[in-house]
């Protein structure tokens, strides 16, 4: 989905996605905070996973089993879902950067057009 978001942003101009700088920066900041938390969660799952199968942490074993069962019953593990989420956030971040540049270009173009109309 976010891939579509990036492609839409890359279209640029009127056809593309554009977002004003202040809003984009706010969203990028929020995405960054979620990304940081996500990295910590992935690190937590990883350290439990490598200590789950053979050793003495039964709770970790339970989490490992949950990891393989979660995510609506398909083949994706909890870890894979979170990794995919991280990738989607990264793409959303890229799309916002592009959308912000698009917005600035549209603004600049509009100012130039207005200048030509005002001072033909």
């Amino acid at each position, binding site marked *: 989905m976010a891939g579509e978001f990036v492609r839409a942003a890359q279209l640029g101009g009127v056809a593309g996605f554009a977002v004003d700088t202040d809003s984009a920066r706010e969203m990028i900041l929020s995405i960054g905070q979620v990304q940081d938390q996500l990295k910590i969660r992935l*690190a*937590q799952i990883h350290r439990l996973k*490598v200590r789950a199968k*053979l050793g*003495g*942490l039964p*709770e970790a074993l339970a989490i490992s089993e949950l990891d393989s069962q979660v995510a609506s019953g398909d083949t994706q593990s909890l870890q894979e879902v979170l990794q995919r989420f991280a990738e989607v956030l990264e793409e959303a971040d890229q799309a916002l950067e592009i959308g912000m540049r698009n917005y600035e270009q549209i603004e600049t173009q509009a100012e130039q057009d207005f200048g030509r109309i005002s001072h033909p």
Partner: protein
Amino acid sequence: MRIHTRLAPLVLVLAAAGCSTPEAGTPASEPGTSVLPPSATPLLPDTTQPTGLAAIDACDLLTAQEATSLGAPPQGHADEILGLRSCDWVTPEGVVSTTIDEELGIDELALSDASNITNVTIGRHRAKRALEASGPGYCDIFFAIGDSANLSVSALYLNDTPRACAVADQAAALIEPKLP
């Protein structure tokens, strides 16, 4: 959980001592028991003074300067889950972590999903270096601390294993001299 197990005998001994505290000038009520004078050396080890891994804070394993040399912020994020004490330093592209595991030796770890495992020696310590144990972008170095404990340095840079290993190797070299 481990601390409770260690403290249990001490609690029992203290409870028993409390029940048999003698009056001044009277002998101990039970044959074979004794009450230590205040100045005597305790027979039990002082469990309030942690030694080895127990004395280490996972976030102290990298100084602020060392963390920034890895591209991470000076302060890590401390965490404890299921007895594993850890610290995560989040970088713009990934995360570097230290984990203290007082339960498992490095040969007991579940690394069957790793794409590559090598036995290495770093400084004074035997270690295992595991690539992609949880998929592309994961790199771990597990230091052996005796036969039944380990301390790991992990780096996660999603889908970029070489980068993760470069960071993990650098962090491991910084941390190894501080290990027991």
